[in-house]
């Protein structure tokens, strides 16, 4: 009977051979991402920076020059115009207005009037205005969410496994998250609340993957009491390889339509998730496992003196 399999069963790939390369490549990418985070930095959306964002659909193809002149004539600072989707759709972004929330509200009102009066037939599909207080709070609670999530993961994995597993998982997560941040900078995708949800989702997905591999390592530690850790980790990865690939693939398939069909924030969300699936899957093999190998070399495995038991199952 036909079965679609990406890798054949009982593979014996020595993944741990590439452990140094894996860690080095990952460290380089993450370092680069951190540099990118500081320069040129993230393209923060209005959730975190405050400001005004308006999605308008003009009656004909949008006249960007006219829009620009009209909007910049309002004295609200430089308006950023961007086409997205069809040529009728314009995304207008204005910096946060000096003079507090009242000034912000007045600016929204002005832009609304200009768009509706000077460009008849224009439809305002989405209007968002976020003031300084709110954007500051959103940023703080967002960072808090990321931090809490990391700590919670560390504690849970530590509790369910050994501390080496917990540290391995969290270090890998930090590497994953930094790379995702780098992805945001390179692609110029807006960094908003949904982006944070995307990062948390990636963390969830990535940790899932680590749990599956670690779970098998733990099982094999009990099963093969004498096998060297390196060989044992390789075995565990090989045994779970088909599962890892199948799950990544189905999640990828489920998210892809969203990246193709949706627009705006949700599309960006989906794109980031797709990136995260690739990162999360590869980091289980090339980062989380080597870290476990380094941390657990003399602790999880107490040398070759242990009694050799090949299979303790009935």
């Amino acid at each position, binding site marked *: 009977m036909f079965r679609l399999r990406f890798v054949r069963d009982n593979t014996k790939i020595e993944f741990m051979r590439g452990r140094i390369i894996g860690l080095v490549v990952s460290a380089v990418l993450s370092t680069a991402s951190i540099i990118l985070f500081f320069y040129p930095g993230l393209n923060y959306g209005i959730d975190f920076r405050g400001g005004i964002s308006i999605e308008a659909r003009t009656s004909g193809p949008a006249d960007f020059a006219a829009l620009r002149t009209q909007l910049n004539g309002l004295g609200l600072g430089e308006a950023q115009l961007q086409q997205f989707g069809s040529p009728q759709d314009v995304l207008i972004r204005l910096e946060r207005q000096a003079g507090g929330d009242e000034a912000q509200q007045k600016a929204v009102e002005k832009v609304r009037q200009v768009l509706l009066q000077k460009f008849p037939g224009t439809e*305002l599909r989405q209007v968002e205005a976020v003031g300084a207080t709110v954007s500051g709070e959103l940023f703080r609670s967002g960072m808090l969410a990321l931090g809490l999530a990391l700590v919670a993961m560390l504690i*849970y994995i530590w509790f369910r496994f050994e501390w080496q597993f917990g540290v391995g998982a969290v270090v890998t997560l930090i590497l994953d998250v930094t790379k995702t941040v780098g992805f945001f900078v390179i692609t110029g995708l807006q960094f908003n609340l949904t982006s944070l*949800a995307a990062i948390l*989702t990636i963390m*969830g997905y990535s940790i899932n993957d680590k749990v599956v591999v670690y779970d098998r390592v733990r099982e094999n530690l009990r099963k093969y009491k004498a096998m060297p850790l390196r060989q044992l980790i390789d075995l565990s990865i090989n045994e779970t390889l088909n599962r890892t690939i199948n*799950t990544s*693939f189905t999640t990828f398939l*489920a998210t892809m339509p969203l990246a193709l069909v*949706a627009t705006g924030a949700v599309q960006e969300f989906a794109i980031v*998730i797709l990136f995260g699936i690739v990162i999360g899957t590869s980091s289980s093999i090339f980062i989380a496992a080597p870290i476990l190998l380094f941390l657990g070399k003399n602790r999880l495995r107490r040398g070759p003196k242990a009694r050799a038991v090949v299979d303790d199952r009935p």
Partner: protein
Amino acid sequence: MMYFARWKVTLILAILALGTIFAIPNLLSSRINAAIPSWLPHPTVSLGLDLQGGSYLLLAADIDTVVRERLTNVVDDIRTELRKANIGYTDLGIEGNTVKVKLRDSASTEAARPLLQSATQGMDLKIGADGAVAASFSDATVQSIVQGAMEKSVEIVRRRIDETGTREPTIQRQGADRILVQLPGIQDPERVKELLGKTAKMTFRFVDESVLPEAATTGALPPTDEVLPLASAPRGGEASFYVVMKRVMVSGENLTDAQATYQDAQPVVSFKFDSIGGKRFCDATKTNVGKLFAIVLDGKVISAPVIRDAICGGSGQISGNFTIQSAQDLALLLRAGALPVPLKIIEERSVGPDLGADSIRAGIYACAIGFAMVATYMVLAYGLFGIFADIALMFNLILTMALLSLLSATLTLPGIAGMLLTLGMSVDANVLINERIREETKLGRSPIAALDAGFRRAFSTIFDANVTTLIKMAILYVLGSGSVKGFAVTISLGICTSMFTAIVFVRWVISVWLRRRRPAALRV
């Protein structure tokens, strides 16, 4: 492991049936739903503002002003009382949250004590032997003042919005000093914003005609008076400001009704006083015929007519420079009452109905395509066991939908994204189980032993993986806002239901299949 007691089977089938019944109304159009007899359950998932279109406004109350206002009133009371009793004082004023005053003669402390006590009710009063007086609110009192003001504000906001005829608005208190307003179907919230931006504190006071306008400009005002500008541009010969007494004759709280009407083809607002207000107005006008009184709204004079006669009918009219709209708005504000605190809008998000409809369409397409691709892949990868997983996946979606309806949760666009991610994640459980069964079969186990071991060994992995995700979603739910919360909710529900569909339900389906077919070997 592969045996199911009869009651368990019944329970599984009951859950699936109930889930389907609760989920179905979401797929029907509202017209068909209306035709369903009311004794049948037909809750539907409410759509978030990003899907149905509408406005989301976050208002912040300036709570400092409430306490400040209370302190100012106390200062006024102390001044009046001490003057009446002819007790000399200096340095009357507010410092932080404390009202301070110094009695000139420390011998007068005893005489002043009862007066100060009544003026500072509810405050901690300290009178020093040297005549230094300090009164302040305790933290608990400040809390309860703020609490009361916020509750009243929510109530007033609700009344104002209800008066505009908005359908199904949501008005919630959020945190210490915020009010969240959600207006489904309202795309341009300008009118609502305008209405909420006004405190609408209305007072009727006398104009102090004894003070010359020059005194007002030079600042030589008696402490009982203040200068207030005119609300609209002054008409011919009118002054642009008035010197108005601080003492309030009648306040807007004593109004029972207000309506916009016409007089001499001019829009005016007519109002009715309650009995107390009517009597006070009557008494005040009786003794002051020929004088000017000012109708003050939010620190601006709307108009300042001459009292021609005692007004004792308990009703009156305000004529100002009104348009029909502004007269209607003022009447509405007066009916709804004054806000105890000024509110300002600190966040606004409005979505047009078209964009919402587009998003729903995109969401449905994405879900359908995603489901089809995942389902096809599962069949290609696992054959019959893939079909089992697909049935489970379908029920997973149905049950998630049903739970969303039952909890009357809100489905947002990120929520739809969450649904799709759940597809991928819940199928993970079946991938794990199937891979495990495959391995066990390869080791030469009998079908029953392989299935048994597959489910048992995969369970702890699935459980750990799901708990970690649930922890993250809980964090996201608590710290996230608005539509992101919807994402956390759908993922969490999806994961919980997948534990049932992917594990319990699939195991039962396989057990039925096993009994019917009795396969000699498993082909996973």
